[in-house]
């Protein structure tokens, strides 16, 4: 059973059409939840860390939120350059990060 599940697997938006990506986790003892952006053929780029339920982080058109069992990455008025795969990961205790499989976002002009 996957510990971190991201949905949807793929999302296609029109430019300016806001939406949210979901990351749910089944583990307990969460130390942190992380969002990354990955462009094709490149390494993941770190975006946000969330440590506790109720926490929010923002960067340009992106806002990440965290509840006790899931996180949302809200994308407001996306542009074509926001097209990428967005990865979610969690850390429990001193273990390495556990990644979800990602959501492929396409923003069409």
């Amino acid at each position: 059973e996957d510990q971190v599940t991201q949905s949807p697997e793929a999302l296609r938006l029109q430019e300016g059409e806001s939406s949210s990506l979901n990351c749910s986790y089944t583990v307990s003892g969460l130390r942190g939840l992380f969002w990354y952006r990955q462009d094709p053929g490149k390494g993941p780029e770190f975006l946000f860390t969330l440590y506790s339920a109720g926490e929010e982080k923002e960067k340009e058109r992106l806002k990440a939120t965290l509840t006790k069992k899931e996180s949302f990455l809200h994308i407001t008025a996306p542009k074509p350059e926001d097209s990428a795969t967005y990865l979610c990961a969690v850390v429990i205790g001193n273990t390495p990060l556990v990644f979800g499989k990602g959501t492929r976002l396409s923003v069409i002009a």
Partner: protein
Amino acid sequence: SQTIHQWPATLVQPVGSPLSLECTVEGTSNPNLYWYRQAAGRGLQLLFYSVGIGQISSEVPQNLSASRPQDRQFILSSKKLLLSDSGFYLCAWKGTYEQYFGPGTRLTVT
């Protein structure tokens, strides 16, 4: 500031040939280092991590090995490549809890 390098960027190798991928980190000392493989539809798979020189933890049994000969150098190796070793290999170093990734190496085994 910290930077992480990987080379080569791309590699095409025949089945049965050896492999050596290198990762180096600048701007930090004694970092935790990680090797991942990314295959389509399977997400990021942790292969090895290291908390210090000569200290390697393996996450999955496989055809690969890792070494850390210097504080900021992490090497991924194989004696004989398999077709299933093809993929995108990523090295990362650990900050507080988050990890920072290198540019990756695309390995194709033919």
